[in-house]
């Protein structure tokens, strides 16, 4: 009696499982559309390579889902039907050489089927030749520096790209705006449909430069340079992340790449070259205290705050306090020197590589007069410039 009922139940369960299978199959046949659920799946991206990678990902994923459904289906069926409570008696078989061969050999063929397109895509990715533009990407704790390489030193553009989101937002004091933690002050600008070669390295620890929309991810290793490349086919703003633990602000050094038409790229580049020239020229003029403090506060926020904190108190012992102690209220030459040249054996970098003389003069002035330090003196950009060039 009990057995008959369970047979009927079994058939009903079979019907239900079939309905499930059909639903899953229908869903998976529309996997192209999955690309739009941005919080669920990888992006298709905007390069030929990124699309190849996406297609490869979906192929492997589908194969894995099919394998999973088959294997789990068998197991779940077994759990429903081969139960002691339904009176099922255990069989006595415990081996089958034929089956062992089958389920060893068939998976090998499936794997070969996966390896072939994977190999082909990888070979495409490894050919970085014939680049139109070379950009050095240098990871710092905790920002990126981009240098557009050029044979003419006057045409070389170099700048730092740091997180734009202010601490007030990530410490929950003000509401989080769009592109929270994904925006920078100076994005990387590149032209579409041109082969851009990235030369990736690091200043300190290992970082990793990743732009999902390009399917480019390469570790930035101190002392070594690695190349990657992309040909972006659609204009737009593409956001990436640092993907190798690099210290406390690993999560706070995003990447933003703006891909634009060639004409727009050229005018942007010309503007940046002009800016570099202008910055050089502002070194000549005499700055007022107010101008130095205003610029200094901005420079401090971008370049110094992450370690020495907004209130100047730092995080001792690694990041000393600048408030009422040390060089910030001490001899001004030593103060300028440590900002320009850094301090060997510590995390204090040589900021002459990242800040121009006007910025250095401004930030030193700011540190000496902010937070109640009120030393009262100030530094002119030309003095910093003289210091730097006299040593050259």
């Amino acid at each position, binding site marked *: 009696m009990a057995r008959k009922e369970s047979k009927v139940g079994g058939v009903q369960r079979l019907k239900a499982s079939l309905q499930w299978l059909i639903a899953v199959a229908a869903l998976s046949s529309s996997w192209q559309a999955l690309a739009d659920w941005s919080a669920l799946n990888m992006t298709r991206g905007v390069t030929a390579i990124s699309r190849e990678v996406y297609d490869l990902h979906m192929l492997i994923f589908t194969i894995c889902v099919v394998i999973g459904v088959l294997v789990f289906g068998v197991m779940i069926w077994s759990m429903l039907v*081969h139960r002691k409570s339904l009176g099922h008696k255990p069989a006595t078989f415990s081996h089958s050489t034929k089956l062992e061969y089958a389920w060893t050999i068939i998976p090998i063929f499936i794997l070969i089927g996966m390896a072939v397109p994977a190999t082909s895509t990888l070979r495409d990715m490894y050919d970085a030749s014939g680049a139109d533009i070379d950009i050095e990407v240098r990871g710092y704790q905790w920002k990126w520096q981009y240098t557009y390489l050029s044979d003419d030193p006057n045409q070389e553009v170099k700048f730092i790209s740091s997180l734009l989101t202010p601490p007030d937002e990530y410490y929950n004091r003000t509401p989080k705006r769009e592109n929270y933690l994904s925006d920078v002050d100076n994005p990387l600008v590149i032209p579409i449909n041109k082969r851009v070669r990235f030369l990736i390295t690091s200043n300190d620890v290992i970082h990793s430069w990743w732009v999902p929309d390009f399917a480019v991810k390469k570790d930035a290793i101190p002392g070594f340079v690695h190349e990657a490349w992309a040909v972006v086919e659609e204009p737009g703003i593409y956001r990436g992340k640092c993907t190798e*633990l690099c210290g406390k602000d690993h999560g706070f050094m995003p990447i933003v790449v703006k891909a634009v038409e060639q004409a727009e790229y050229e005018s942007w580049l010309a503007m940046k070259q002009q800016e570099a020239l202008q910055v050089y020229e502002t070194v000549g003029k005499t700055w007022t205290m107010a101008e130095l403090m205003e610029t200094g506060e901005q420079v401090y926020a971008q370049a110094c705050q992450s370690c020495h904190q907004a209130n100047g108190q730092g995080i001792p012992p690694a990041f000393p306090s600048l408030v009422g102690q040390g060089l910030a209220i001490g001899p001004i030459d030593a103060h300028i020197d440590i900002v320009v040249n850094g301090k060997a054996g510590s995390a204090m970098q040589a900021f002459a590589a990242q800040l121009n003389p006007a910025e250095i003069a401004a930030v030193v002035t700011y540190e000496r007069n902010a937070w109640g330090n009120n030393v009262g003196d100030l530094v002119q950009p030309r003095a910093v410039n003289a210091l730097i060039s006299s040593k050259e």
Partner: protein
Amino acid sequence: MSAVIENHHDDHHHGPDKGLMRWVLTTNHKDIGTLYLWFSFAMFLTGGCMALVIRAELFQPGLQLVVPEFFNQMTTMHGLIMVFGAVMPAFVGLANWLVPMMIGAPDMALPRMNNYSFWILPFAFSMLLSTLFMEGGAPNFGWTFYAPLSTEYAPPSVTFFIFAVHLMGISSIMGSINVVVTILNLRAPGMRLMDMPLFVWTWLITAYLLIAVMPVLAGVVTMMLMDIHFGTAFFSAGGGGDPVLFQHVFWFFGHPEVYIMILPAFGIVSAIIPTFARKKLFGYDSMVYATASIAFLSFIVWAHHMFTVGMPIAGELYFMYATMLIAVPTGVKVFNWAATMWQGSMTFETPMLFAVAFVILFTIGGLSGLMLSIVPADFQYHDTYFVVAHFHYVLVPGSIFSIMAAAYYWLPKWTGNMYDETLGKTHFWLSFVGVNVTFFPQHFIGLAGMPRRYPDYALQFADWNMVSSVGAFIFGFSQLLFLFIVIKCIMGGKKATDEVWDGAEGLEWTIASPAPYHTFSTPPELPERSMA
């Protein structure tokens, strides 16, 4: 009246010594197994608390609870404690309890070294945990501690981290030597290698892996120590070294390490499923060869953790093919478990629930591992939450579930009492739901672009992070129920028979429950058919 005082130590015929010193000085494999298991449970809860700090912070975007420096300490310590303090000692504890009984041996081959192997661990972990209170904080460079973040840029506590790793390594190496010597020399007469229960086989192979790679870990941390304190430049380009050398040496240890953390689980599940399906393990010989193949392959795939480091294409292709190959013997094992269940006569007591969940959820983790092995796709997965999802699937509903399954399965043998079946099933379902709610969404956020080891994230990742955090708290608090169940079982319960489970095979079910302090002081007569 004799001048000689007769010392008749009848005590040992009546059970173990009383008092604390029993535990300090014991050379009994059952006692030492118990010590390892309780130690691992304590570490599991400690590492679990760290996980909850992480998930609490990640519940919402923004920094609410901890600063990034401390967050990095939590992720690092969580990884170290779980890998070296929870999973590995638990498996060693199970080996200690079960291997001698399963092969009909009176104890491990080297009982005093066994005691020493255990007692190193509390010291090692006290040292490691004490770094949380040192100036500069605990290690904050990830459990994979890449140089130069872990050398030139590390907090002062890195030196204590290195010493703790040395100590743990010594414990593992000694323990493994013990396991190998025991299994090769102390089997009951007539028990051939191919007659041993699969759990013994998987531990034999795991022990060889440990002996091979723990010294490599010791080597890499010693090189770190030299770089930090003695002016060498193994991992610093400035001195002619290479940070990538660190990664090669670390992962040469690291990859076999993850197989060390799963092979004993395979053995446990291969013991439990046949019992509750009332059907012999399908394809015993195949299972042994598959385990050995997995172990061999595990040595030659390490650089699949380093696909983005800039290796030459030939290297990347080789490691991709070798890694994909591991899917074959692993698949063979999964199919064999399914074939064991097929046409069985199954009941679903708690051990079986955990064992079946292991097979299904570990396979999901294995499939995401297959996806990760495909290099071009890995460029998009590497160092994102997709990887975090993968390894947590194979470690939590993988290794941890197998340890829980083992606990439920063998507790009646160890204590003489049945655990509370209703509570056990409750613990299972809470854990099953918790584990999936925690880790399945991490596949999504990883694919969508969230990197790992981030204390804060962009807004598009918020929803799934919240879901994942809720799951983590469900899973975490369910483990308190497990603690309650274990203690309750030890204190009393329905009396267990010798055989405990209908369909259980193996020498451990031929002795009394609870197992006497000394078992198989004389070797057993083996039954006609093989143990498999």
